[in-house]
């Protein structure tokens, strides 16, 4: 699967990671899409991008396609929060 996204929006990626991280377990695609607040074609593009970068995994629980955060996704989420904290702490007036 290849993604058409050239420059993904960091906010959407962060929200994607956030939703999955907070849920703790694999989620249905429609639920993720609703929580992200983007339309389905846009969601599919982001999902493809996330899969391509191995930030999320597709699982097949109870014969339903679900999406879960991969170890790389968890690590990326941690790095992201640390980075924001560091940026705000190092800003100077």
């Amino acid at each position, binding site marked *: 699967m290849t993604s058409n996204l050239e420059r993904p929006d*960091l906010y959407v990626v*962060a*929200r994607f990671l956030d939703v999955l991280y*907070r849920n703790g377990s694999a989620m249905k695609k429609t639920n993720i899409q609703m929580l992200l607040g983007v339309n389905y074609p846009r969601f599919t593009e982001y999902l493809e991008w996330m899969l391509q970068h191995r930030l999320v995994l597709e699982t097949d629980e109870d014969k339903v396609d679900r999406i879960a955060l991969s170890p790389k996704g968890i690590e990326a989420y*941690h790095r992201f*929060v640390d980075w*924001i*904290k560091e940026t705000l702490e190092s*800003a100077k007036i």
Partner: protein
Amino acid sequence: MDSSQDKTALGQQIETNLNSIVDIAEKWLSRLRRRRKQVKLASAFLTTLLVLVGLAAVSVGYIVDQYSVSFFHDHPILILTLLGTIAVIAILCGVLSYFVQGRKQDASLNELGNLISQMKQRNTGSLTSPDVLSITEKILTLLPEVVRKRNQDSFLFGILAFVITILPAKLPLAILIGVLVWLYFRYEMNKGYDKEISRFDEQRKQFEQRKQEFMETL
């Protein structure tokens, strides 16, 4: 420690970090508000001074030109009333400038304040990383807006130079010196302002660059 304990510990760490980001943002907000207040007070004070010196110079010049220097000695009550009126006008101008100037920046600061208080009111655990990212972006955007433009300072120096020079010299020379002093300080102050602004722009650029770099590492 097993994997579920690991996850809980990591989750707590994330929550702690997200909450501490909001706390840092709150500190930033109070620093920005303090700075904004200082800038407004300084500008209001300078406006008062500018109007005071300007009106006093025009009045003194008019009296000396139309009457004589002895007019001040002969009409002390009139002079005191005139100076009092000028002082009241100058103070009113200063107060007006305090409330009128920078309303756009005040609105942006209030917006940031509302955003932070909304996040603080939420239940623990509902703070998201895009929320804190947007706060960080807002703070970095607001930083250049609290830098004081020093146009009034240079104008005041120009007027002061004019007033000092007009006493011993003629009007054209006083105007020339006043304009030269004004232009010189305007140049110097604009240079300082640009330097400060470019420092904040650099910070903002670094942030954008690091955002880009972060996306590339994913």
